[in-house]
């Protein structure tokens, strides 16, 4: 909470002001956060991090070199068959 100088108003009014400030800040940040969230999600999908997480959840194992090995083995053929355009 921001420091409040003396004589600026009652505690209730100060709380209201702080709430309004927070609401304004989140209104500004919300679209930016949303864009960043989607951007990170896209990068994680492109770089197969999400696929690995899904694999861990599906196999009910935790991340380890052995689990990553299994993940790579499972997706090897699909990855190698994925065309890359010109």
């Amino acid at each position, binding site marked *: 909470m921001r420091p409040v100088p003396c004589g600026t108003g009652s505690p209730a009014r100060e709380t209201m002001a702080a709430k309004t400030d927070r609401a304004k800040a989140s209104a500004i940040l919300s679209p930016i956060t949303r864009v960043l969230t989607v951007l990170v999600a896209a990068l994680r999908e492109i770089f197969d991090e999400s696929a690995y997480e899904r694999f861990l959840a599906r196999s009910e194992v935790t991340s380890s070199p052995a689990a990553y090995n299994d*993940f790579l083995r499972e*997706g090897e053929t699909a990855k190698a068959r994925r065309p890359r355009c*010109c």
Partner: protein
Amino acid sequence: MNLFSPQYSPDPCYLMPKVLRVLLWTAISLLGAFALATVALHRGEQINAMWLVVAAVATYAVGYRFYSSFIAAKVLAIDPLRATPAERLDNGRDFVPTNKWVVFGHHFAAIAGPGPLVGPVLAAQFGYLPGTLWIIAGAVLGGCVQDFVILLFSVRRDGKSMTEMAKTEIGKLGGFVSYVAVISIIIILLGAVALVVVNALKSSPWGTFTIAMTMPIAVLMGLYLRRIRPGKVLEASVLGFVLVLAAIFGGQWVSQSPSWAAVFTLSGATLAVLLIIYGFAASVLPVWLLLAPRDYLSTFVKLGTIALLAIGIVVLRPSLHMPPLTRFIDGTGPVFAGTVFPFAFITIACGAVSGFHSLISSGTTPKLIRHEPETRMVGYGGMLAESMVAVMAMIAASVLQPGVYFAVNSSAGLVGQAPETAAATITAWGFPVTAAEMASLAHAVGEQTLFNRTGGAPAFAVGMANIFSNSLGGQAVMALWYHFAIMFEALFILTVLDAGTRVGRFMLQDALGYIWKPLGRTSWYPSILITSGLMVAAWGYFLWQGVKDPLGGINSLWPLFGICNQLLATVALCVATTIIIKMGRARYVLVTLIPLGWLVAVTFTASYHKVLNANPRIGFLAHARQLANAGADTRLIFNDRLDAAVAGVLVVLVAVVLIESALEWTRVLSGRKAAEVREAPFVMTRLALEEQP
């Protein structure tokens, strides 16, 4: 409003009052029309690159907002209530319902390769106008339509591939021709792009060292991912990128050290052999060791550099020195021979219309789509983004002085080996350049020479270095920018090479499995070695012929690749047209029939010229005759005849598909055959209802 809801409109003006929306879109349309008119009609003084950007962005916006929504609503009758295969067959592996922005990024990363950078740079020999107009119009009316409709049709058929759809919708012959077209395009594409790398790296110790370093860096990334931080791909890619930047700095030192520079100064032939060995090794080594980490690294650099180039062009707003039209529209161009029609339209395939995209749109992408309406943004929108990359490449080539552009892109066989002779020839064409000017530019970018660096990559790199060095670091760091651009292009060309060799290998194994079953077993090592060897030998042969070609190789290989790519697009549009007719939407068939007709005109005319034109610089057979009369090496004569045979056979096969498709349309339209749509049965979506705000 929920961003991920199917009801969410991608149009940010959705919530505006109607009057404001009409006013806004009228303003965007007028701005686009004015910018296009300026680009098309401006003569004399230099034009600012922003005119091209504004013309493209405004046209794309109008095309996306109106044309793609018309196609979605009227032609395809997209149904938001229909469950996609990602929802119905969700297995957390191949079929995964994924957020549309994530699928968009995934799709864009798969379709954007070296093509939209190299093609426009080569086509800039006609001036910036023909290529720019084709990129914009071709994408909005052709390429985006193809990607969108094929994606939707694949979604409605449980993610079936293009070749499978061709087989079920047109007939067995359609499937066979698609298969042949795909394998041919992969072979010729790999030969052509490998030649681009060879021409960019020959006699360049700095560039060769940097690219050589990317291989141990990729292996290091693979080991890091497997042993140290399993699955942390973004982290490993950032690490790899930092190491690649260190390699670019190290390359400068290598190029200045007499002993190390000698080690990394390689001829075209040596580089070709090394690339062939690399392609074979990458195909037979485990995916995790080389292919996967290189793919990650290349994607990371690609996305970053494209964003950087876009920001650079918008912030710096460079002027174009290339005229809108050059004298070479008459077909006498030094970069490649042939008149503006049809050759501008096959030189720029990726960025306008690319048949290869139909493979991506019917590959991984349809298995990730969560709601049918999202195919519009991913298919149509993804291609618009690639088209924008092509416009940026055109700008990068056109900011160069035309004399410099032609000096870099003309082969020694045409302008002469000696710098003074080459400069005099190019100046005589009306594009002044001096040997001293070229020597100074070569010195600034850390190269021994920039003459005869055909292939498009060096010209693009000089253009990009030119744009960035004007503000970020000045002339002092021009060499670093140049080598960064060369690394960026070569890196993802090598990724296309190793991924393409593997994809081709699997296709060959699938086909050979019909002849002898063990050959179809993808994990049987003798089969892997044989099919990898066959694939590498096939594209390696085209690469070798390009390296040995006295006209520089690109003159024959790039048009051949363009023809193959556009012929594949012709097959894809035949499939799309057939399905539209069978859906009972024949009144909207012009949506695919117009681009199909245009591509038939372009590819068939180009093939005719490449095979039968009497000018030896254009026609393969005329060139073979000229070589035979001069008593040249028989291998060179054979190469020309082989190129002619490839173009001829492909055109005949695609003509057969066209005829078969036309017969199928007639049968369905006349009622002689029932219009049978082979879609997966309708299942009501649960996801759309669950995601209601």
